[in-house]
């Protein structure tokens, strides 16, 4: 059996915590990179022995800030992966990077370790906004990092956050126009989400600032779509744009509901064990993870089988984010609700494909909860 498989490696450390971010990231004084390398290797081996094998089609180092990893750790992990699995030729190997100078200086070493794509967290091109977002780099530094990346990697992507506190449509239009000059191949344009348990949540609740939501948020989104289409980079997913062929293979695995293994603190996976799809979740706390891996060879907190029904709903949840929609041969949905959504112009159904329209994609959460309501 040689089904495609993707691998996600989570590096849970950052230099400082951004006030909007609720990802599993921690600020640590000291990280023993040797121990971490060993632990990743141990957990990868565990998965190799537990889940059905396949051919690795993408690898993603996410975080946290994986660009803080010492290159030998990245290299050690990749070598180990090659030892365990068959890795497809041209396999996309991405690393998320923060655009500070220290990190950009390591790009060459990452390249040599086997990384062939970087995703750079630029977030904004306004220094004042970067500061507000708690970022430790300037716009200039970010541009510099992109230039360095372009010399080293064949593929790179950028992350920008928009619909930020007190941002105006006009302000974003101007910023995105500037950004288009440095966008190449692939870009992720995320509307800021105010996540519970972050300083932004409290500040927002307290009324310190307002963020464009609902109608205003829709205006931001539609402006963004129009500009990106004009630039020849329409969205292939809710927040992701690429020129043809440059889509992120790794993220497509998620959205197409393929198989992926997640290792490292807080990582999630969808893997096949004895012909049954399972959801895996790893302990979030770095210290506990290290301890579990040392003691048991893995840091799994949960590994639950997924019923057919849940699988279909997950596949739909992810797939409707994509332009291409979801391939479905058999519809196990409430026909009345489905038809209602089609009539309302939120969904489109052709022979084997269910797709969200632009209107439907923009309110996909409501569409899904209505569909399953």
């Amino acid at each position, binding site marked *: 059996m040689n089904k495609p498989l993707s691998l996600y490696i989570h590096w849970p450390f950052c230099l400082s915590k951004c006030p909007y971010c609720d990802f599993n990231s921690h600020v640590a004084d000291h990280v023993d990179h040797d121990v971490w390398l060993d632990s990743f290797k141990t957990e990868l081996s565990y998965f190799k022995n537990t889940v059905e094998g396949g051919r690795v089609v993408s690898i993603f180092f996410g975080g946290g800030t994986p660009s803080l990893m010492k290159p030998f750790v990245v290299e050690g992990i990749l070598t180990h992966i090659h030892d365990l699995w068959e890795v497809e030729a041209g396999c996309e190997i991405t690393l998320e990077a923060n655009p500070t100078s220290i990190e950009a200086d390591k790009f060459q070493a990452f390249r040599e370790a086997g990384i062939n794509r970087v995703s750079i967290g630029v977030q904004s091109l306004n220094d004042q906004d970067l500061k507000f977002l708690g970022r430790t780099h300037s716009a200039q530094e970010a541009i510099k990092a992109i230039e360095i990346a372009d010399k080293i990697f064949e593929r790179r992507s950028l992350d920008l956050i928009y619909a930020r506190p007190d941002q105006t449509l006009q302000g974003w239009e101007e910023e995105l126009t500037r950004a288009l000059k440095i966008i190449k191949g692939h870009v992720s344009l995320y509307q800021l989400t105010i996540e519970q348990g972050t300083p932004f949540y409290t500040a927002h609740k307290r009324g310190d600032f307002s963020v464009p939501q609902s109608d205003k948020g*829709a205006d931001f*989104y539609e402006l963004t779509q129009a500009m990106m289409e004009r630039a020849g980079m329409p969205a292939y997913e809710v927040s992701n744009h690429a020129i043809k062929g440059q889509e992120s293979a790794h993220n497509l695995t998620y959205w197409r509901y393929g198989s992926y293994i997640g290792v490292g603190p807080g990582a999630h996976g969808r893997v096949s064990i004895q012909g049954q799809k399972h959801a895996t979740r790893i302990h979030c706390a770095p210290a506990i993870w290290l301890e579990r891996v040392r003691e048991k060879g893995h840091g799994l907190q949960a590994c639950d089988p997924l019923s057919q029904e849940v699988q279909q709903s997950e596949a739909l949840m992810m797939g409707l984010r994509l332009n291409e929609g979801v391939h479905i041969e058999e519809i196990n949905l409430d026909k009345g609700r489905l038809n209602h959504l089609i009539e309302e112009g939120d969904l489109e159904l052709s022979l084997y494909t269910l797709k969200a329209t632009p209107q439907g994609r923009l309110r996909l959460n409501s569409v899904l909860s209505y569909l*399953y309501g």
Partner: protein
Amino acid sequence: MSPAQNTHPLEHIRNFAIIAHIDHGKSTLADRLIQTCGGLEEREMSEQVLDNMDIERERGITIKAQTVRLLYTAKDGIEYQLNLMDTPGHVDFSYEVSRSLASCEGSLLIVDASQGVEAQTLANVYMAMENDHEIVPVINKIDLPAADIDSAKEAIENVIGLPADEALPVSGKTGEEIDDLLEAIVKRLPCPTSQDLTAPTKALLVDSWYDSYLGVVILVRVIDGYLAKGQKIRFMGTKATRDIDRVGIFTPKKVMLDQLGPGEMGFITAGIKDISDTKVGDTLTDEKNMCDTPLEGFKPSIPMVFCSLFPIDNGEYEKLRDSLARLALNDSSLIYENENSQALGMGFRCGFLGLLHMEIIQERLEREFDLDLIPTAPSVVYHIHMNNGTMIELYNPVDMPDVVMINEIHEPWIKATILTPDEYLGGLLQLCQERRGEQLNLTYVGDRAMLEYRLPLNEVVFDFYDRLKSISRGYASFDYHVDDYKTEDLVRLSILVNGESIDALAMIVHRSQAERRGRQLCERLKDLIPRQMFKIAIQAAIGGKIIARESLSAMRKDVTAKCYGGDISRKKKLLDKQKKGKAKMRQYGNVDIPQSAFIAALRMGDE
């Protein structure tokens, strides 16, 4: 077993209540008295020790009356037994106050030196006078920089009519002059009279409550005779007989004794499981040696404000029923009966003494019993006089009969007393006028205006009290009692969402107010109902006539921006949460209305 003599002869017993407007410092002063008499060690003192329900502590108000026995050795060298009652100050609980007063011979009337006489100060004084109480006026909080002892004295003399020089300035907080106060209690308050240990037992059932450890605890005041452990007693009103298994007092710690003698206050337990077997105001007597005539008893409390409570989760109906029963154990003024609403399912129509009482019950249900409730708009009891000559008491606007069959609708009116600093008078007059009030009297007490108004209770249950407080920056005080029923031009206002009437929002209003209320409700709902997948029409109607409308456009954006592999589970949780949130919603047609929208809409006042 023959009864023992009292530890303290009658002349050395003082039974007194502490009465005041809310927040004037009754509970704090009680703390000081307890502490000074050594009822509790310093380290055992927490603030307002008598307020032992959580909600009392949190809201800083006394809901139930409390009693404590203290021993005080006076300057004359004699040890006195002081039985103190702390009473609730809020108008909703004046019923509790009145029965506490019936068990005492005197009152300490607390007046906050920085606030002066307030509406409930007056109401309480009048109640104490009806009970023939000797009253010692106490000017409290003299430690405050804003304390104005002279004005307080003047008001005591001019408004209440008690001699100003009899008022004692004290501070419940610092304990200043507490010794003088204790001396005054002993010197100026009367001892219990005409009691006799050998006479047939006659005792007043002051209050009762359910204690999970002791069962039903009965608070008593012995008039004649005694109550002793093992004694067979009879409840003259309910005609039940029981054996007393415990006799005791609060110091405020529970202390068990063998007996309570004439003039004394304390508690008994008598193997009673259910509080409804005890009637507040009942007379207790000795089964073998009965007294001839029972005590006068109390008028039962009448619920004035009604609303319906529905569990959000229909499966919690039984839990709600049990929880209401549990609360009613300790609250004889809470009444409830089943109600079946088309939209909201099974619930209860409940009657309360007033708005605060209603809020407290709802809060306790949600907090102590972990229920999620949808309360309907508070309403009063209307008398519907039908064309056929019959009269229907309407407890719920939903049940209003067809208008063509109605001859007249009568609604309850109250007599309200408002005391306010002069500068807010204009605003308050306007408020009363807007609420269809009729001015009865306007007098001045120093620089404070005393306003008497007749008002429809319906207009008061909305948000009158909040408005009064906000107009007067908290300085005006308010008290009321129900006056009579009066015929009015009243109509039923219904609210429709996508053409479907929401029974929970139906209300009866004066025709002159209907359009304004309807418009307000529609506007408010437009903001409260979350955008949905589809467009929604919100309308207000009288009968078939639409008098206001709003429309809510469909939701445009609602999508998670960043969704990576690890997020599937998270996002599923989000959807599940939305689903769970939906369980908290009620569906009207295809519109989901969250509970919070109901509550907020129902809280609505004039803004």
